[in-house]
Structures are given as structure tokens and as C-alpha cells.
């Protein structure tokens, strides 16, 4: 009887701590979304009423609208660029044994490990050195942002595409080649369709990590080139009203949809 009680108590404890963790993670998000609809300009609980006005106001703000559009643009271009660079890298890592493969695989995943602010500073210095040597300015232009965000996205792309490639049965590629397809045609006609869910997930996830990046972008934005997270940071320096909550709510919604689609495509929990 004691045994039964102990087991029940234990499982209750586990359940309780699981809910506690979830509350810690989700709680602040719920509050932000709630605040976005408050009628009063000064955040106070409980609100005197509810409105959609802050969403309109956020969109009318140049900083937020331009920031949102720039983040969207950079996110889309960077995720596609990282896919185009990531696919060949993933093929090399998953299909060919070559000296230094482990090293390259580790280096490609390094940006996940290096703190964003360090990576951002490093890239900034590198771009300045490039500018001094060639006279071509990249830092402070949209190109600098695109390079940085592609770098942010590549580890995730490589990770997802490599995992997908490793699951493809090699003999279907051999079957295609045996039937007369060149290796390239076999890859396009047989391998790519087989890993399509992985590619979709890679694009979506790359988009998300680019869309939320703050640290790397901080060094690289220039006049009129402000991404949404930086616009939020700038606004928070001087203001605290539900506009910021409305912007954050849009951001949370967009990310949630992208991650949900990515998970449906490959089942992210199987890869991470």
C-alpha cells in the first residue's frame, strides 16, 4: 500500500513540475498578448476596457512598419540563401567521406554555440576589415544584414537537411542512376522530393531564427535599416505602453505559425 502511495505522489510531483515549467514559459507570453488589447495607455491591471487600437498604432508607426517589413524581407532572403548554401554542404556531410568532414560539420554548427553578440561583433570587424581592404561598404547596408542572417540560418538548415538526407534510402538514388539518370538528375528527381518536408522545415526554421535575431543585427544595421527586434528595443528605451505588446503579439503569432508548419512537415521533436 505504501508503495502505491509513493508512486502516486511521485507522479503527481512530476506532473506538477511539468505544469510549473510550462507556466514559467507561457505565462509572460499570455500577459503580453493580454496587454496588447488594454484600452489604457499606461499599463495597469485590471484594464479599464479593451481595444484593437494599439495594433493600428503600431502599423502607423514608421519604425515598427519599416522594421517589420525589413525583418520579413531579410528573413525570407536569408532562409532561401541558407537553403541554397546548406543543401550542397549537407550532401557533402551526409554522403561523402572526406578528410575534415567532422571539423566542417562542427564548424557549420558552431554559430549555435557562439553567443550571438560575439558572432555579431566578429562579423562586424570582419566586414570593416573587408571595407578597409576593398573600399566596399557592407556593414550598415542591407547586404551586411543579409550576410549575417544567412550565417544565423545556415546551422539550422544544415542540421535539418542532413538529418533528412540520412533518412533517405540510398538505393533509390542508385535505382535512378541504374535506370539512366545522371547523378544530378537522380538527386533532383528522386532525392529532393524525398527530403522535401525537411527543406520546408529548414526554410521555416531559418526564417524564425532570422526574424527574432537581435544581437547580430545590432552591429550591422545602418540608417533606415532597422529590423523589428531592434525597433522594439529602441522604442522600449523611452516608452512603455501597449503598442509594444501589440508588436510582440504579431511577432509571436507569426513565429508560432511558422514553427507549427515546420513541425507538421518533419516533426521537429524527432530532430532536436
Amino acid at each position, binding site marked *: 500500500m505504501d508503495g502505491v502511495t509513493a508512486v502516486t505522489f511521485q507522479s503527481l510531483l512530476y506532473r506538477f513540475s511539468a505544469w510549473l515549467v510550462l507556466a514559467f514559459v507561457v505565462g509572460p507570453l499570455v500577459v503580453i498578448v493580454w496587454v496588447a488589447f488594454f484600452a489604457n495607455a499606461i499599463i495597469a491591471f485590471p484594464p479599464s476596457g479593451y481595444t484593437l487600437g494599439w495594433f493600428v498604432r503600431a502599423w502607423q508607426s514608421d519604425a515598427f512598419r519599416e522594421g517589420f517589413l525589413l525583418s520579413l524581407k531579410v528573413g525570407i532572403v536569408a532562409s532561401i540563401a541558407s537553403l541554397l548554401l546548406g543543401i550542397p554542404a549537407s550532401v557533402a556531410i551526409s554522403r561523402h567521406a572526406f578528410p575534415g568532414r567532422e571539423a566542417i560539420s562542427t564548424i557549420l554548427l558552431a554559430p549555435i554555440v557562439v553567443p550571438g553578440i560575439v558572432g555579431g561583433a566578429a562579423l562586424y570587424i570582419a566586414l570593416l576589415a573587408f571595407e578597409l581592404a576593398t573600399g566596399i561598404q557592407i556593414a550598415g547596408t542591407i547586404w551586411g544584414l543579409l550576410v549575417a542572417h544567412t550565417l544565423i540560418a545556415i546551422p539550422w538548415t544544415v542540421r535539418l537537411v542532413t538529418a533528412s538526407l540520412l533518412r533517405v*534510402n540510398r*538505393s*533509390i538514388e*542508385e*535505382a*535512378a*542512376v*541504374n*535506370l*539512366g*539518370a*545522371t*547523378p544530378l*538528375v*537522380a538527386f533532383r*528527381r*528522386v532525392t529532393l*522530393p*524525398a527530403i522535401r518536408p525537411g527543406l520546408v522545415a529548414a526554410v521555416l526554421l531559418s526564417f524564425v531564427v532570422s526574424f527574432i535575431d537581435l544581437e547580430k543585427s545590432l552591429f550591422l544595421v545602418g540608417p533606415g535599416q532597422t529590423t523589428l527586434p531592434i525597433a522594439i528595443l529602441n522604442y522600449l528605451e523611452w516608452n512603455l505602453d501597449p503598442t509594444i505588446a501589440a508588436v510582440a503579439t504579431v511577432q509571436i503569432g507569426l513565429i508560432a505559425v511558422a514553427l507549427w508548419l515546420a513541425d507538421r512537415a518533419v516533426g521537429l521533436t524527432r530532430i532536436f
Partner: protein
Amino acid sequence: MSSVRLEDLSRRYGRVLAVAGVSLDIREGEFVALLGPSGCGKTTTLRMIAGFIEPTGGRIGIGTRDVTRVPPHQRNTGLVFQNYALFPHMNVAGNVGFGLEMRGVGKAEIDRRVKAGLDRVRLADYAHRMPRELSGGQQQRVALARALVIEPEVLLLDEPLSNLDTRLRADMRDEIRSLQKALGLTTILVTHDQDEAMAVADLLVVMNAGRIAQIGTPAEVFEAPRTRFVADFIGVSNLLAGRSTTQGSFVLTSGERIHVGETKPARDAVLALRPDRLQVMARPSGQHANEWCGRIRSATYLGSMLEYYIELPSGTTLHARHGNVQGHEQTRFQAGDAVCVAWPEAAARLVDAD
């Protein structure tokens, strides 16, 4: 259809010779089985013929063409994989038509030939199914149709039946054999299953450690294995080491003198004796040239078969197996029984010790 010629074909991986100088001539329309245990080099040989593994020595000819350095997509071989390897995102017709599409055949002609190809494997109604909707046997027939529709110069079968259950395997085996005969296909089958190889092939090539151990018709290999390895592989379970004498006898290491039909120069060899050729009796008959008495060490009832291990006084153990036919009830033995075993002179063969 074409002939296939392997000349001193080798493949080395680091210090390991996976295939060590295989030479083989396969005639047009001939069905050859590469037979051997895993790691004997049979699959490596097949993959070299398909072009997926580059030989480190020797040459491969298909028809009049030397294809040793020809890339796999230009070889025109039809390969059927053990795991079927159907394209999961294409339907049956798409799979079967893929090779024709790669050859630039027109749409109408592809449709016509795909239909004929599916008819041939009795899957005409399945053209629009996806591979995952088919059973294992159906998938394998699609794979076969896909390989045949391109009219390959040689059909290559890589353990095509090993993922199927026993009954389906026999059906599929007969189907492959009759298609091969009807179309006159030059065919190379890789298998580790000697029954399968004997049932379909015109010629068996038994391989061991990267080399050909014996080539012959199924009957030749079965009746007259040349080495201890081949005899063991095809199921000869009594392999007794000893020395042959010039007087038509063979002296076992354990001392027994066995009468053998063949007279050979004196040398070390192995006596190979099939378990089904041994007669087990309750007492000596005095009628056989080779007759030895001992005790049943173990007796196993296998349903249609009875199996005995008989230990002779010298310690030598013989394995006997015979059909559980009617009338044998009285002569069923148990462990510990004193029995005698006998066999005709011609039943035993002397083979090389490898």
C-alpha cells in the same frame, strides 16, 4: 541481350581484397547465380557490373563493349534491389516509366511500354497506386517490371527474394525464372540461399573470400563439390579429414579405413558424405563395403525427417538424416541405442581441404 565477361576482376578496400581476381564468361541468355556466404564478394561483384563500385583491377565487358570505366547510368543494366528501392513519391506507372523517360522516349510510347511491362508481371490494374499501397511481393514485381522495361543488356538481381515470406518467395522465384526464359534474359542473381540458386540458375558460381570456389551446373556442384568449403556450403554435413591411399581407400585421421570408389594419389583430403546417403540399422548387415557400428548420441524428430548423430568408438561422429516414410516406425532410434551405419562406395567424395 548480351554476354557478360569478367576478366580478373578485383576490388580492394585498404588491405582487404573484397573481390580477388574473378574471371567469368556468361553467355547470352544464361542465368547465373553468384552463391556464397555474406562477405564472399558476390554483392561487390554485382555492384561492379552495375557500375556502382569501381574495380581496382581487371575488366568488365558487356556484349562487345568494355564497360570497366563506363559510369553506371550509361551501362544499360537492369538492377533489382533487395529492398525494392521504388521511388516513394511516384506511382507505379511513374516508377516503371522512369528509365524510358531518361532515355527520351516519347510519352505515348512510354505509356504503351509501361502498360505492357505491368501486364507481364500481372499488375496492369495497379498503374496508379503508390508504392506504399502495395504488398512486398507486388513491390518486387514493380521493381522487376521497372528493370525489364528499359530492355537491359543484362538483368542483375541482388537478393531479390530475401525480404519475402517463404511461400511468396517460391512463387516469385518461378515467376522470375519463367520471365527470364521467355525473354531470353542474360541474368545474374546474387544470393546466399543455395536452394534458390539451384532452382533458377543454369550455372552456379560458388564464391568464398573474394574468389570463385567452383563453377558448374546445379547438378555438377551438388553431386561433385570440389572443395571442403563448397561441400559444406551446399549442405554436406559429414566432412572427415584424412589421407587418401592409392588402393581406393581413405584413412580417417581417427583411424577408420573407408572404401571409396575413386583411386587417387596419396594425399591429405576430406571425405564428404551427404547425411541423406547414410543408412541407419539396428545391427550389422555385412552387405556393405562401408559399415560402422556405434551409438546414437542424439536423435531429433523433424516431422518429415529423422535426424541422428552417431558416435563411433574412435570418437568420430556421423550425421544421418532420412525421410520419415511409412514403415520406418519400427526402426526409429533413440539416444543411446547401439546402431550401425552404412553407405555405398560411390556416396562419398574426396574433396580438397581448401
